[in-house]
């Protein structure tokens, strides 16, 4: 069976991630999963990553570590940074 493409939202604010998941699913994307920064890799399963959504208000080191992890997993996977800066400005 062919593995399908997966959009992964990695955030430690679960409600916020679930809202974004709902929006993405509205756009007819069939497979979207939410994960915490600590366990996102285990949530991939048999799927292939289409993109990873990361919140840019994760503290600097965690965000950088996550980006490096995505690159290690597959450097071709697009990374979508969700900018929450205004909220915290």
């Amino acid at each position: 069976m062919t593995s399908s493409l997966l959009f992964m939202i990695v955030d430690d604010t679960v409600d916020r991630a679930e809202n974004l998941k709902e929006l993405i699913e509205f756009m007819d994307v069939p497979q979207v999963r939410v994960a915490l920064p600590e366990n996102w890799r285990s949530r991939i399963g048999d799927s292939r990553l289409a993109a990873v959504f990361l919140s840019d208000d994760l503290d600097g080191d965690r965000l950088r570590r996550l980006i490096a992890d995505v690159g290690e997993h597959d450097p071709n996977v697009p990374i979508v940074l969700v900018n929450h800066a205004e909220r915290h400005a």
Partner: protein
Amino acid sequence: MLRKEFPWARFYTLRSPVQFDDLGDVLEEIWASHSPRRRDDGRGSAAQSGGEAIIGESSAMQSVRTLIERVAPSQATVLITGESGTGKEVVVRQIHRLSGRKGAFVAINCGAIPEHLLESELFGHERGAFTGAVNRRIGRFELAMGGTIFLDEIGDMPMPMQVKLLRVLQERMIERVGGTVSIPVDVRVVAATHRDLPEHVANGSFREDLYYRLSVFPIEIPPLRERPEDIAPLVREMTERVYRRYGVELSITPEAMSALENYSWPGNARELANLIERLAVLRPDGRVDQDTLPWPLRPAARPLATNEQELPAGEALTATLPAGGLDLKEYLAELEREMIRSALERADGVVQQAADELGVRRTTLVEKINRHKLRSNG
């Protein structure tokens, strides 16, 4: 900052709260940046350029089929031109299928990959070639060894990459980024663009020598509006496809078919495929008559009609720029607001019906209603 730190990464940004349109743009780019094989896995091919076979009974499409059969078994580099949505990728896949080449078909959208990543995407890189290059990575040319590489949107390739591609086409060798070894490549190159390359050559944004290297065997796909006789066979093929996918058997009345044949299809076969799929989803009873069609396809469609001043049916849209100029963004926003208000009025506030009238998704319309602070009953 992050871009500098992780030069290999393909970043997109979204501002919170996320807007539908912004998200849609990002998702479109992401889908486009995946190779066709990946895209097919994720969302099927119904919305893509009209299917795998080359459909069409017009003499123009018969010529295209003849050219494909003639060029496929050769090693010639092929340049396919045509407007967006005309089915260039279908033609490329057919060339690969008939070529007898055993290697893979590998596609890359040269316009969707950021400039600083394109070289690595095409030719690969060695471990440590730049910050973040933690592993050796094989590029698309090597992946296509013994097969075909499809360079889509070649007209958008940055000039520095044009120089490198020209060298590969001349020498049939590639070098990975950060590597020192030249690797011979046996790859059939097919490129495509919706741009006018001779014009780009004339204005200096596309290399003339690369243009001649690529256009050894040019194939031009005419836009759908120039071959209305192809619309009925395309609709037949697409309705069969949506029947297989959704189990909905579309029955299109002769009047509706005539409206389809008289429409100009700016998005070409892709727009037609999208419409057929949308009809299959919205009309589970399968009946498609003139009133079922979205607004621009109805014969009496009236561009820019308002209560005060309605244009005669079929009259072309004209607009005059005020002497003092205008704020185009504000003008278009106002136009959008008025169209939505009219659609909601006509639909008695039923959002789904208004969305059908406007040819947009319900969710998109809801977002726009909120943005324009319009209220509805539905």
